[in-house]
């Protein structure tokens, strides 16, 4: 046998046994046994023949056992089988788990390799505690038996088939025994509502550390809500809580108090679903001292006209904060929270077209206020601005959006420049001129804020030459334009000759050498695309002798 990696002959390879050795073996051992049958074979009486049959059958039946015994002895010489059980268990524990966290079934193959592996694997309950109920219910039950008292990690994901009552009963009846529970139902014809799973999670879950519930709810016929009495209020080890597509979240539940990570995505189509006032949400945050990651998505309550919020909620303990919601609700929320300068922050907002101007202006003011606070120490700050009707049209792409990502790269220098990534997709009819968003934002940046701007224009934007001139005159820190093919003509008209094409068939990007004269900080080019391991998508070709912040020679 050759080792696959090195091509080295290994000692466990089956040795060549010549025919003569085999023949000798049989004449010495099996031959003597056969000799006892000679007399039986010559008999003609029925009783003698019957006895011979029995004797031969016995020999035939014994052979597999003998072969098995020989092979077991041979395996005992194999280096892998010489390893102590705990080391074998260590190897088996690396049952590959893909990125999505669902357990696979390598263990099934492992228990069928040889007797020793089966004995060791089955004798270690902790190997069997990660169970994917969606693969094969028979195996799930076999694994549950083998796991014994090991805390369970149960995963169930349904996309084509429906979640069965057995699935639900199995989960509900073992809540006290589960450490990690992940329930994903993407079957829009089922949504698990028939089983009311989301409402049956009311037993105590003393071992539960992580919980993720995702239920597709495409037809919106019914609000999916989590019970206020979830886990009977008792899940003292619960640290991660993630729910998607619910209409109501039990903010006052005591099981939230120990959370480290909370991700909530409520069904934004459920406008009239019951909701907690904003103060309840703030109260809930204050009851979670260990909280480090918060990702609320469409879960802020509708505004009440007389509602005033002057409180300041300290969220400086967060290391990551991602908010995506209606622009007005988000603005109000952001006015009340205090974030850590070091928190990785992403804020998305959604507004209707009819109030885009006012909403964007208002929210930019809040964003810039946070940006100003973080000027010296924020390592990274992202803004995601979504402008369109997506709030009203569920599950559809926004009609138009503008996105601004602002990154401050990790640097030993306190005054690392902010890198703004300005992304535009489709025109904004109400705005009449998409550049207004950029203009508004640039106008609000503090004068002392060092920033570098990239502009990314995607398919469908129909900017005029005047728009482009406006952009370039506003953005005196623009270093790069990245544009899609459909807008190329306009950009070419505006900026002149295309010098270099780069990209795949669907999306072409080009470099405009004129922009090199607008570049403020050529040295920062490598930071323009601050994603680890990836180079900047475009190379600007310009003389390195250009001084920073020198603006000259715009050729339009």
């Amino acid at each position, binding site marked *: *046998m050759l*080792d*696959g*990696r*090195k091509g*080295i002959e*290994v*000692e*466990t*390879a089956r040795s060549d046994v010549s025919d003569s050795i085999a023949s000798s073996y049989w004449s010495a051992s099996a031959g003597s046994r056969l000799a006892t049958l000679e007399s039986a074979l010559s008999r003609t009486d029925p009783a003698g023949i019957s006895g011979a049959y029995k004797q031969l059958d016995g020999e035939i039946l014994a052979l*597999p*056992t003998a072969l*098995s*015994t020989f*092979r*077991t002895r*041979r*395996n005992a010489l*194999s*280096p*892998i*089988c*010489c*390893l*102590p059980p*705990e*080391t074998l268990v*260590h*190897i*088996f*524990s*690396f*049952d*590959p788990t893909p990125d999505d966290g669902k357990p696979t079934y*390598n263990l*099934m*193959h*492992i*228990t*069928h*390799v*040889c*007797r020793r*592996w089966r004995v060791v694997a089955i004798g270690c309950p902790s190997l069997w505690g990660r169970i994917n109920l969606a693969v*094969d219910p*028979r*195996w799930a039950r*076999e694994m549950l038996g083998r796991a014994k008292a090991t805390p369970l990690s149960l995963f169930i994901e349904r996309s084509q088939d429906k979640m069965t009552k057995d699935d639900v009963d199995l989960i509900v009846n073992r809540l006290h025994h589960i450490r990690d529970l992940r329930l994903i139902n993407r079957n829009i014809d089922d949504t698990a509502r028939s089983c009311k799973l989301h409402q049956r999670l009311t037993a105590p879950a003393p071992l539960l550390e992580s919980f993720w519930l995702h239920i597709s709810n495409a037809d919106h016929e019914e609000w999916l809500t989590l019970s206020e009495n979830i886990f009977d209020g008792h899940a003292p080890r619960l640290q991660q809580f993630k729910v998607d597509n619910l209409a109501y979240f039990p903010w006052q539940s005591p099981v939230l108090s120990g959370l480290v990570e909370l991700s909530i995505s409520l069904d934004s189509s459920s406008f009239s679903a019951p909701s907690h006032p904003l103060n309840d949400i703030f109260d809930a945050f204050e009851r979670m001292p260990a909280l480090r990651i918060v990702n609320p998505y469409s879960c802020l309550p509708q505004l009440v006209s007389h509602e005033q919020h002057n409180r300041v909620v300290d969220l400086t303990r967060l290391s990551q904060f991602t908010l995506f919601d209606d622009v007005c609700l988000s603005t109000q929320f952001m006015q009340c929270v205090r974030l850590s300068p070091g928190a990785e922050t992403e804020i998305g907002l959604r507004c209707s077209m009819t109030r885009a101007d006012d909403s964007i202006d208002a929210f930019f003011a809040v964003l810039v206020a946070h940006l100003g606070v973080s000027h010296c120490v924020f390592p990274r700050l992202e803004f995601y601005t979504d402008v369109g009707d997506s709030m009203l049209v569920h599950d559809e792409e926004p009609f138009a959006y503008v996105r601004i990502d602002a990154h401050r790269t990790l640097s030993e220098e306190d005054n690392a420049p902010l890198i703004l990534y300005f992304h535009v997709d489709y025109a904004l009819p109400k705005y009449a001129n998409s550049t207004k968003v950029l203009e508004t934002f640039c106008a609000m940046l503090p004068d002392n804020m060092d920033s570098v701007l990239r502009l990314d224009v995607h398919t469908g934007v129909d900017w005029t030459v005047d728009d482009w001139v406006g952009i370039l005159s506003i953005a005196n820190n623009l270093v790069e334009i990245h544009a899609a093919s459909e807008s190329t003509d306009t950009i070419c008209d505006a900026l002149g000759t295309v010098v270099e094409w780069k990209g795949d068939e669907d999306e072409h990007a080009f470099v405009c050498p004129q922009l090199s004269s607008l570049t403020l900080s050529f040295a920062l080019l490598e930071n323009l695309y601050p994603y680890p391991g990836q180079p900047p998508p475009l190379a600007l070709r310009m003389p390195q002798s250009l001084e920073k912040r020198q603006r000259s020679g715009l050729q339009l």
Partner: protein
Amino acid sequence: MPTIVSVDDSTVPGEGSSRLLLLVSSDNKHIVVEEDIMSRSRFISKQVEGFEATSQRHAILLPFSSFVLNKVIEYCSHYRGYYLLEDDPDAAPPGRSPVREWDQEFLDVDRNMLLRIIKAAHYLEIKSLVGSCARAIADMIRGKTTEEMREILGVENDFTPEEEHSPSSKCTG
């Protein structure tokens, strides 16, 4: 238990800040190594504690070859002074050993050598090395069928027909 033989002080030089240990492999090679390097091994550490209790110095006989022992020493030398969670006896054991790039290159050896290293690491109680070896072996059989696993690791199917068709076997579908 390892065989411990008394050695003359002159056999093991070194007094002071960095003491030396004499390790003797199964092929009777004598390898002198600094105690600090081998402190990652719980087994060696316990042996050294025993030496201090008796005020005697010993050679430590180990049941694996000098080739394997040198590989283990190379590993311990690389991580000398590094804190690895798996080797901290006071820390809660991590669920799985983390991926360490250097380890992956270090363990890019033939299968038998890999198995010898993990056995030695287990004997010496170097949990981080056991973990890295286990990961490397698991990578070898990842996604493989039962038959392929047998082929890769040189194992025979020693099940009787009845065992092969046990109720749990039927579940493999």
